[in-house]
């Protein structure tokens, strides 16, 4: 970690968990910071390497069963992410990466596999695959507009008392109980896979605000807004 003035974004294990366009979240955070004049340094941490503790925003993406299990083992052994979160860093955990953050998740044959225990959720394997558009009303305390994205997973996630749901679903499956994702402290987890921030720039700004510690000036969001409007119009009942 070279610079004290730049925003440090750490992408965890793109070699294992990056099968769904997860890079998009990195690129969008970079763009939205830079358009506000905030310099950014991005670190791609391969799974053979230690997770640095000095980052501001950590990202972890989705992936297949086997890489998910490997990623959980390595993160637990490494401990860097735990230390970073204890220091107050922010985290966006997507899909397989979201499940890993809890106490347990479903493995290749549905068997329970230990998560890294960073947040109070427990996941398992559901009956069928949830594939399709997801929309939901975000938790009112977050002050964010409707959540929109695409999900593709077989997981079911139970939220413990230590976390709050990110949204109540109106379309799609999410956690499987009418809620989608969760948040606690500066951690956000979601089943919206891949480039979840592409359709939720407000969520991107929430992560940036946590990291920067100040309100951010508005920027031109017209392409984000046009895409959101088109997708929500396509999927929400009229």
């Amino acid at each position: 970690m070279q610079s004290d003035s730049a925003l440090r974004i750490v992408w965890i294990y793109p070699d294992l968990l990056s099968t769904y366009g997860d890079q998009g979240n990195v690129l969008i955070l970079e763009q939205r910071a830079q358009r506000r004049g905030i310099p950014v340094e991005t670190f791609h941490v391969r799974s053979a390497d230690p997770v640095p503790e000095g980052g501001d925003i950590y990202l972890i993406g989705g992936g297949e069963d086997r890489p998910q299990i490997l990623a959980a083992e390595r993160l637990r052994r490494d401990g860097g992410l735990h230390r970073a979160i204890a220091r107050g860093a922010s985290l966006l955990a997507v899909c397989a990466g979201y499940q890993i953050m809890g106490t347990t998740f479903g493995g290749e044959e549905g068997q329970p596999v230990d998560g890294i225990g960073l947040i109070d959720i427990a996941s398992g394997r559901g009956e069928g695959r949830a594939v399709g558009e997801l929309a939901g009303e975000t938790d009112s305390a977050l002050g964010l507009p409707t959540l929109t994205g695409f999900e593709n997973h077989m997981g079911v996630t139970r939220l413990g008392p230590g976390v709050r749901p990110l949204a109540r679903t109106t379309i799609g499956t999410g956690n499987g109980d009418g809620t989608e994702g969760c948040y606690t402290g500066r951690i956000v987890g979601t089943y919206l896979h891949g480039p979840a921030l592409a359709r939720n720039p407000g969520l991107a700004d929430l992560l940036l605000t946590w990291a920067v510690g100040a309100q951010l000036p508005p920027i031109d969001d017209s392409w984000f807004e046009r895409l959101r409007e088109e997708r929500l119009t396509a999927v929400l009942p009229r």
Partner: protein
Amino acid sequence: MTQLPLRAQLASALGRTAATLSRATGRGDGSVIGGRVSLVLEPDLLRQLAHDRKLALVSATNGKTTTTRLITSALQELGEVATNAFGANMPAGHVSALSSAKDAPYGVLEVDEKYLPEVIDATGAGVICLMNLSRDQMDRAGEIWLLAQKWRRALAGKNTHVIANADDPLVTWGASTAASVTWVSAGQPWKEDSWCCPQCGGPLDRKGMEYVPPGSAGTGANPGTTENDWACRECTFRRPTPSWVLDDDAVIDPRGRRWVLDLKLPGRANRANAAIALATAEVFGLPVDRALPRLREVTSVAGRYTTVERDGRHARLLLAKNPAGWLEAFDVLDPSLPVILSVNAQGPDGRDTSWLWDVDYRVLRGRPVFVAGERRLDLALRLDVAGVPFQLAGSFGQALAAQPPGKVDVIANYTAFQNIRSEFGRAV
């Protein structure tokens, strides 16, 4: 082949009638519906139709249709070849292809990568070509590690010869349970799905190549002989020594002779497909000096690389269905021309557009870029974040009309490509 049981003959004939009807009513090329009608009547038909033929199956994420065409062209030097030339690559399409060429002693079948195990079982094919595996239509194609695992199981214990791309670690793993393999160094520009060992999950090291973060420089297509070497840092799994090597514009055969390809088909990916085709032809007893002239005759495959024209605008059509395919398509683009990009998200494309974020569009900076297709707003945001200036068009036709007269390149994904072909001509 002509001695099919009566029931199978009837099923096969009915299938051909349905295909004729489908073509006559303009619903498609008829190859899939014909096969479906046949399969309903006789589920064992594929087995019977494949019996006694010398068959090659061709599977991969990208390049299946073109490689099937190249191998077919080569083997026609030996005799009649049954083939599913229109990309109908599931068992119904295979039935359709084989039953419409009953007496052909040879068959070359493109096989959807998910269906490969069942088609291997049904056909007992003697030769299987495996080129590449990468992320593709995640909402329906599923997981490629799992797919390679299924290939391994399907190949184990069979008397099958595999021709496989040794530069793709996942393909190598998927092929390595086969009784015998011809390894071809056909290159692997897209590496984002193979930074981990498929055998043990450890990190894969690549010779002369450190881990390259996605989206940064270094994904250039250089299929030289040593840059493609890879080995697991933690177990014994490593790249097998290839006997055929794609070396820039030429293929080096197992005797060390260098053959300049000089194909009409453009781009690195097609040179890789040709390397696989030449190695396959040799397994069928056809030497390079007889196979290569046949490959050079192929100019367009199921509309790929054809040019459509309207009002003096000549648009060359490139198909790209996934990030690895886009990387290969960029390699074919003429940097001096404007480019139209068209993206849909219908069932065959995958309903999910997340993959757009795995494509590095920055290579398009500096040329006029037009964006069309049903999911143009997804692409527009992607280009905006990549810092690539573009113009949004309501449709492909509008984007074409916005060009000055002359040439333009087009990259489209599957149904976007088909829409353009059906509106502007289906010449193959």
